[in-house]
């Protein structure tokens, strides 16, 4: 909210400087967002004298002027304004001046063959009014070369403060002054709210409230006043200047008065041209009517919105915005002033539904002092009579205001309990009474009556805040939080720690950690197994951010694509983040997923003298996944690698990692070529996904002691075997069979060669394994070794259907 220092001083008797006031406002919770000189944007404009103005030789509508701007030289300026004439005093902008109304900086130029070094300005160009019919006309006695803001008295200080949603009472300058006075920065000046004597019966009767019992009813009390025979028109300079200073456009006196009261006292008003009202004015809810509002837009009003209507329909959307039909104009002679009290929640609801942002809604949804309804109407009446003349008719008032009349039982010790601050009982009492709270009692427990303008204060903690903001939070002594009396227990749970480890493990494998959006396009969500309605946003910010991601891969692949488009096709990216299998808490899992593109393998991308660049593939994905599982302490020997590719995977180059029949730990593979094409990414993409939440918690061990280390004194023995078998036989089954041949002696089995080719037969492959035997209590004899070897051959040939290569 903006107001000027002058305006504040209308309500606050103070000698404080703008700087002191600004500091105080911030410290009492009315945060200053800016303190500016009112004419800051217009500093560069000067008063000037048009010494001569002659017809432009090449353009009918232009004049060539010689301008004296106080520099001692005459400046050539081409001007298109019809009122640019010899002898005129006006406002001039030198070349290099920013013209706010045109959003441009004026330069030196040549207009149709005539030099032009600056600009004579209209009010619109200075954003002072809508008037762009001609350049500004200053009185003949205006000085030359003076800053226009100084000449026009626009050198005042403008405060811009931000009002928190609980402080409806501070949405007017008067309320701000009340807070400052309580803080000790001056004395609040009273306003004359006394009733204005009436000159007769009101032609508009008190408005009937036409609501059924079960309808939402936004109106509480409606105070109206018919003012007869007024003379409207532009408001006096002081009023126009005051409104302009805070960014409001003056309209006419009556409308300007409603704005003055709204901004000055936080008490929104509305004015109707009484002669445009047809039939009876009533209060009722809308019936789906279209409504032409003062912002020149048409709104459809529904049954939850209270309107002021006549026989023809809504005149005003109550508490939010008036209508064009009964709007007050310069020609209005009979005006009906409204000052009404509304239900804040219903105003907020109607405001949200229509999307109308207005000064009235802003205040009324934060709640306006119910004690100001009739006084506000009297104040408006007095102002209109003063500035427009006319005769006031009897007030037309209906309905009842709602006063919460809150009384808080307040133990004074509460201040110390919540803030740690020592404040004496007298000081607390003084602060609260300055803020308008009435305190009863003398002991440690007091009864505090909350003033009508502070409905936000309902309990003890609220009163503590009132005391604290007046004492100053900076005066609260800093006190260390007591340290724990023991070594802190672990800060991270197993799941939280896993994410951290997974990140570091993947980064250590040369992948960059990305953080991508939690929401992706519906198409991408559907491609990766998501897209259900419960995972969609009702109000997405963009069409490619509509669905909660079912996988981290779409975001990573999109990231890789953006990098490729910038000329970096070799990318290794991973993310550790949440994915959504449903809208339920248990549907959220944390995945660690990654992609490698181009030649971004573990060994690094690109060509190198040490070897050629290999394209990424399924083995990179599998290795990344295994590295993470290993880093997380998962026994790789115990997980199953199954040839069951993910839906996004190349069907023959991808697999699933499982732990038993129920638990899937992740997937790895190359992206399906068809999907690559759809996602517009070139070349192979190696990808993996790990469901970190699926990894079981480690078993609670009774002891941290590791099992005893059993080292054999005998050398291990190694034997090689090669088998020919069908191409489809899995390596896992070979290894399992070989290992099972003699569990006591066989320590390890490795595959050291795999090849296919015509010499091993069509649809066949050769697999060579190395079996390592570890004797435990004696050196093995040749017979014993031959026996184990025979068992290995028998087990492998039986399981695989292959045969030993001779």
């Amino acid at each position, binding site marked *: 909210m903006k107001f000027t220092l002058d305006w504040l001083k209308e309500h606050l008797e103070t000698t404080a400087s703008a700087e002191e006031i600004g500091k105080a406002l911030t410290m009492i919770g009315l945060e200053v967002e800016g303190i500016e000189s009112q004419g800051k944007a217009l500093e560069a404009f000067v008063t000037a004298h048009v010494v001569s103005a002659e017809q432009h030789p090449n353009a009918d509508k232009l004049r060539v002027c010689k301008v004296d701007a106080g520099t001692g030289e005459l400046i050539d300026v081409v001007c298109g304004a019809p009122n640019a004439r010899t002898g005129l005093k006006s406002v001039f902008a030198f070349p290099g001046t920013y013209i706010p109304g045109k959003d441009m900086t004026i330069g030196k130029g040549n207009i149709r063959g005539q030099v032009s070094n600056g600009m004579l300005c209209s009010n619109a160009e200075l954003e002072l009014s809508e008037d762009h019919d001609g350049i500004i006309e200053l009185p003949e006695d205006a000085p030359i070369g003076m800053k226009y803001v100084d000449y026009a008295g626009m050198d005042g200080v403008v405060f811009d403060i931000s009002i928190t949603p609980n402080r409806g009472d501070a949405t007017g300058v008067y309320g701000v002054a009340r807070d400052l006075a309580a803080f000790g920065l001056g004395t609040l000046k009273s306003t004359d709210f006394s009733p204005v004597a009436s000159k007769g019966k009101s032609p508009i009767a008190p408005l009937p409230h036409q609501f059924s019992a079960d309808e939402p009813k936004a109106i509480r009390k409606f105070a109206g006043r018919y003012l007869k025979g007024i003379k409207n028109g532009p408001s006096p300079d002081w009023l126009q200047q005051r409104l302009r200073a805070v960014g409001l456009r003056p309209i006419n006196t009556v409308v300007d008065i409603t704005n003055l009261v709204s901004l000055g006292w936080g008490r929104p008003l509305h004015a109707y041209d009484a002669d445009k009202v047809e039939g009876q004015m009533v209060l009722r809810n809308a019936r789906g009517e279209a409504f032409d509002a003062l912002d020149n837009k048409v709104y459809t009003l529904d049954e939850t919105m209270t309107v002021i209507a006549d026989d023809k329909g809504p005149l005003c959307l109550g508490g939010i915005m008036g209508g064009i039909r009964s709007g007050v104009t310069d020609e209005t002679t009979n005006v009906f002033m409204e000052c009404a009290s509304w239900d804040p929640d219903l105003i907020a609801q109607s405001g949200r539904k229509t999307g109308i942002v207005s000064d009235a809604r802003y205040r009324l949804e934060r709640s306006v002092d119910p004690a100001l309804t009739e006084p506000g109407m009297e104040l408006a009446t007095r102002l209109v009579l003063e500035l427009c003349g006319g005769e006031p008719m009897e007030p037309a008032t209906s309905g009842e205001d709602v006063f919460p009349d809150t009384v808080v039982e307040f133990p004074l010790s509460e201040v110390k309990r919540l803030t740690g601050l020592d404040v004496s009982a007298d000081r607390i009492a003084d602060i609260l009474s300055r803020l308008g709270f009435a305190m009863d009692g003398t002991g440690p427990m007091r009864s505090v009556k909350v003033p009508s303008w502070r409905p936000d204060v309902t309990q003890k903690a609220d009163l503590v805040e009132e005391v604290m903001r007046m004492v100053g939070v900076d005066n609260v002594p800093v006190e260390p939080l007591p340290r724990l009396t023991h070594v802190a227990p672990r800060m991270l749970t197993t799941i939280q720690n896993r994410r951290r480890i997974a990140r570091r493990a993947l980064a250590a494998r040369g992948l960059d950690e990305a953080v991508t959006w939690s*929401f992706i396009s519906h198409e991408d969500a559907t491609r990766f197994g998501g897209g259900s309605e419960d995972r969609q946003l009702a109000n997405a910010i963009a069409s490619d951010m509509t669905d909660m991601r079912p996988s981290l891969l779409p975001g990573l692949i999109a990231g890789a694509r953006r990098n490729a488009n910038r000329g970096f096709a070799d990318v290794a990216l991973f993310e550790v983040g949440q994915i959504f299998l449903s809208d339920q808490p248990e*549907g959220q899992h944390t995945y660690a997923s990654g992609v490698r593109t181009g030649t971004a393998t573990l060994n690094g991308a690109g060509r190198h003298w040490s070897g050629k660049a290999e394209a990424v593939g399924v083995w990179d994905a599998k290795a990344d996944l295994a590295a993470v599982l290993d880093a997380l302490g998962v026994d790789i020997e115990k997980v199953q690698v199954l040839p069951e590719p993910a839906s996004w995977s190349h069907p023959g180059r991808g697999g699933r990692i499982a732990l038993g029949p129920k638990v899937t730990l992740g997937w790895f593979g190359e992206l399906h070529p068809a999907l690559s094409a759809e996602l517009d990414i070139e070349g192979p993409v190696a990808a993996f996904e790990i469901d970190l939440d699926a990894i079981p918690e480690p078993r609670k061990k009774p002891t941290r002691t590791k099992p005893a280390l059993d080292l054999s004194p005998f050398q291990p023995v190694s034997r090689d075997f090669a088998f020919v078998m069908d191409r489809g036989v899995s390596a896992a089954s070979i290894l399992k069979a070989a290992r099972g041949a003699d569990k006591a002696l066989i320590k390890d089995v490795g595959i050291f060669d795999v090849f296919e080719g015509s010499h091993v037969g069509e649809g066949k492959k050769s697999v060579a394994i190395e079996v390592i035997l570890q004797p435990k209590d004696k050196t093995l004899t040749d017979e014993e070794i031959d026996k184990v070897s025979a068992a290995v051959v028998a087990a492998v040939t039986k399981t695989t259907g292959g045969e030993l290569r001779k």
Partner: protein
Amino acid sequence: MSLEAQIETLRSELSAAIAAADNEAALDAVRVGALGKKGSVSALLATLGSMAPEERKSAGPAINGLKNEIAGLIETRSGGLKAAALEARLAAETVDVTLPLKPAPTARGRIHPISQTIDEITAIFSDMGFSIAEGPDIETDYFNFTALNFPEGHPAREMHDTFFMKPGPDGVKKVLRTHTSPVQVRVMQKTNEKPAAPYITPAMDPPIRVVMPGRTYRNDSDQTHTPMFHQVEGLVIDKSSHIGQLRWVLEEFLKAFFEVPSVTLRFRPSFFPFTEPSMEVDVQCDRSGSEVKIGEGNDWLEILGCGMVHPNVIRNAGLDPDVYQGFAWGIGIDRIAMLKYGMPDLRAFFDADQRWLDHYGFRPLDLPTLFGGLSS
């Protein structure tokens, strides 16, 4: 030929042959030819047996002298040849050590600044005895607003630019959490039910000290706002914690986080529905240069919101606000990361631009700890 002449001839022939042998094999052939069973020197030695004792007396030492001399020459020559062979091998094996390596994986991979910042925050608060608590991103309207004392229809709700979920099968109104504060309620609110998922922190009994980092969402986008961002919430609940201690916690945290000897904070009364009294906190900084410097200067920068947990929130969580009290605060993780590390544009955080990640990211083993320093 006299024996002397024979010895002299052999000596000169064999010396020449030894000198001429340019490899071990040739040298060995000379050795066999001279000293082997049928070698020339051996043959000469064999003649000793048939000599008269007188003759042998003088011939013996002469022939043995030759034998020893030749054996010595061969040994010397052999040593020279071995050294030369090694020399040649070493020369042949010489490489250009200035050839560049491929960078190691650990030199290429990077940790995102957000993760690094969360790890830094974690390190600091672990020292103060806090633990990490978490809740879901898709929250019920109840946890995100109602339990946090946001009345239905209150303008404060609207200030949050909430993302709403389309209705799901259970008919419960859901939103993307607009702040990490719902986790506060989840942590405080005692129930008999197990958390719905293993990542959700179960409710705990006071005294409570938790920090709650996570993703948050608001329907807002411009240079300084993205529809997704990160917050860390802090919560202390016990029977005595007050604003004086809140000030201490925040001062100590910011000092440790920004790694400066002191910070000056300005607490301004403000409004949040879930705290009372509520405050916003500005940190003193220097904005005169191209970067913002915390801990010096004459400017203020708004950095966080905080307050005493609202009695209604404590009550909503099933605790008695006349017995239990405490404070909470919320900080933008992205924002303090931008400030600390001088990253100008928030939107770049979520773009996965490899150049940005390589520049602003952290090495995999730069793990922030209090004992090793938050940043090196």
